[in-house]
């Protein structure tokens, strides 16, 4: 057993941390937030050409760096800490994962290299607008028409859906109730309309997507080894683990900021950090951050196993739900406590606390909140 980052992984994390400290400070986040795109294309291009993060866990055969999901998670943690506005999560933790899991070799060879080159962003659209995050959330449909496939339907809560170049969409065969297939198509395909859905958390973009008689070649249907249902479940679990990592990073930042602020702020001639009421709250915050981190690191290892096809990968749904349920609640609680301990300034737009507080809520609801994932675990245990 080796349940710690290797030296190499530590280096990757530290490089990411110091890069993000430079490029994703409060001013940069706020500037990106104010745009419809939601991120700075110049910065994303710099990330793609200098850091090569978009290619991090793509196998070398497809032009990637060939690293694993532990590295992805280490990066997501840092991005959450610095609230980086970028299409990394949608492209790498949804798009690339979807291709790695659901595509056949030919499809991988067609799409992964273009993502690695940094010219193509991608996202996953599957939820038809319900508060469920499994295959039952899919409402769009597909049918065969000659050599082509025709897609119809709509999606909500699609991360970066209005800007992504490449869409991976889930749809059910018309007339068949259960079988889901995944399709990859350029966002510019005729019949695709996309609209930005402005959100409370302005540091990450969501969109709605509508498909009206969208015609694609049969080759657009992802046809790897898994069934569509199994593939979608795994893709969502992997994304949830990445999101949980981001939640850990955000929680850590809120804890750090709270310790720093309360150690400076004086009331009644004492730093407020010297009050036991404040220390105990901070201690509880740290407990949640560390527990959350343990959950995520374990899930990251399981995700890695799942991607490489090993047997431990069978634990993926459980590990994903354990991590996402705990981290969702922890981040929201920690960010809320931070706001409380900042007092009046925590309630302002000027201080960054509200950015994290809002991110905590949006991440909590994205891909299933604590209650959703606990119900999923309960079903695994009891049903």
């Amino acid at each position, binding site marked *: 057993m080796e349940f710690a980052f290797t030296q190499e992984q530590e280096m990757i994390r530290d490089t990411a941390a110091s890069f993000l400290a430079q490029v994703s400070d409060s001013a940069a986040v706020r500037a990106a937030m104010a745009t419809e795109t939601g991120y700075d294309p110049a910065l994303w291009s710099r990330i793609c050409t200098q850091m090569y993060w978009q290619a991090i866990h793509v196998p070398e055969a497809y032009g990637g760096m060939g690293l694993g999901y532990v590295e992805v998670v280490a990066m997501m943690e840092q991005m959450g800490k610095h609230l980086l506005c970028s299409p990394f999560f949608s492209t790498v933790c949804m798009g690339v994962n979807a291709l790695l899991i659901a595509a056949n070799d030919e499809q991988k060879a067609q799409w992964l290299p273009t993502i690695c080159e940094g010219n193509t962003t991608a996202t996953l659209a599957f939820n038809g607008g319900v508060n469920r995050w499994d295959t039952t959330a899919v409402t769009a449909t597909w049918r065969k028409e000659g050599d082509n496939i025709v897609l119809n339907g709509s999606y909500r809560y699609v991360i970066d859906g209005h800007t992504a170049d490449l869409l991976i969409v889930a749809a059910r065969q018309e007339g068949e109730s259960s079988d889901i297939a995944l399709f990859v198509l350029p966002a510019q395909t005729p019949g695709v309309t996309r609209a930005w859905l*402005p*959100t*409370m958390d302005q540091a990450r973009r969501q969109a709605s997507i509508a498909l009206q008689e969208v015609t694609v070649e049969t080759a657009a249907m992802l046809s790897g080894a898994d069934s569509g249902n199994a593939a979608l479940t795994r893709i969502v679990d992997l994304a949830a683990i990445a999101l949980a990592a981001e939640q850990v990073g955000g929680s850590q930042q809120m804890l750090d900021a709270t310790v720093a602020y309360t150690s400076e702020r004086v009331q*009644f001639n*004492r730093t407020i950090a010297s*009050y036991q009421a404040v220390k105990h709250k901070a201690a509880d915050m740290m407990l949640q951050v560390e527990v959350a981190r343990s959950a995520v690191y374990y899930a990251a290892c399981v995700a890695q196993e799942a991607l490489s096809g090993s047997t431990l990968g069978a634990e993926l749904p459980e590990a994903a739900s354990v991590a996402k349920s705990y981290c969702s609640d922890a981040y929201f609680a920690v960010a809320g406590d931070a706001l409380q301990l900042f007092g009046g300034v925590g309630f*302002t737009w*000027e201080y960054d606390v509200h950015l994290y507080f809002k991110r905590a809520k949006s991440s909590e*609801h994205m891909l299933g909140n604590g*209650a959703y994932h606990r119900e999923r675990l309960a079903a695994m245990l009891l049903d």
Partner: protein
Amino acid sequence: MKLSFSAEDEQFRQEVASWLRDNLSGEFEKLKGRGGPGDEHSFPQERKVWEQKLAQGKWTCVGWPQAYGGRGCSIEQQVIFFEEYARARAPGRMGHIGEGLTGPTLIAYGTQAQRDKYLPGILDGTQFWCQGYSEPGAGSDLANVKTRAAFDQASGKWRINGQKVWTSLAHESDYCFVIARTDPGSVGHKGLGFFLVEMDQPGIQVRPIEQITGTSEFNEVFFDDAECSSEDIVGEPGEGWKVAMGLLGFERGVSTLGQQMLFQNEFDEVVRLARSNGAASDPVIRQRIARAHTELKIMRYNSMRMLSGQSTGDGSLQKEALIYKLFWATWHRSLGELAMDVMGPECEILDAPPYALNRLQSMYLFVRADTIYGGTNQIQRNIIAERGLGMPKEPRGTL
């Protein structure tokens, strides 16, 4: 103990309700449900006109004694008024600081000249007030105010210098009551004065503070040789703390039941939403809705105990009053979270860019202030432990 209101009181209820029905219409229709915490930026001018409409019906300052121009309503009638007001979804009161804080303070501690000067403008809904207590260095530790007031013999006026912060509605106010240090060498609650200061003067600058909702209802207020006439200090120089604390006593008044009616409106909206979007079938949500309902009900019973005690004289020391702020603020904060969780992923979606929040989103964000202003949850717990349970005081530091 009895639960029902007298026939006379029920009659009064009809009167309030029918006046509101008749008058909250036409140009005022659009004000329904607007204003109040989290929505103060909506229609401030129109809501000021509404205050004057209320005044015409003699529905401002219903709890003030008749001798001072009020209706002299009993506690029960005040409760009824605030309940009906909230039930009618009448707009958030622009005049609540003047009516609820300035007026009672002047009636209790002011001179007759001050009452003659200021009460009429509050009664007729033409003059609006804000509360200049907090400063950058004086939040929970309110007695740490640094704003200075010096009497200038030459002009016969007080000159005020310093800064206030978080001053709600200062940008819509004609007057501010300010606590400032009259004794330059003093510290803590000694050496303070309580001043009635006109906002529209060169020595005062108001700068809005943008809050978590993207809107601004509070401000920084800068005093740079602001003037205040010698008649506009309440109490003697050095007595400011006594007046300031007396005023805070008025804050926990009968308006709590009206506030609960607003909570009820919000809660009802959450329930409606849960029914319509399917969240009502989620067992976790069901539990949380039932809990919120339970606690809102008890909140009302608790207030009834508080108010009954108050009429016998020593309201502020009762235990049910001591826990009230912590209870409602924490409840309201959870209601915000419940509202978002009932909405599910839709809770993120705004009405429009850049930041048009719907009512529940705005409520959810704004309630984070409830556990901060008026004594944070931590300070409330200290007060409960020290005053309610007689436990030792937190030692002051020596920094």
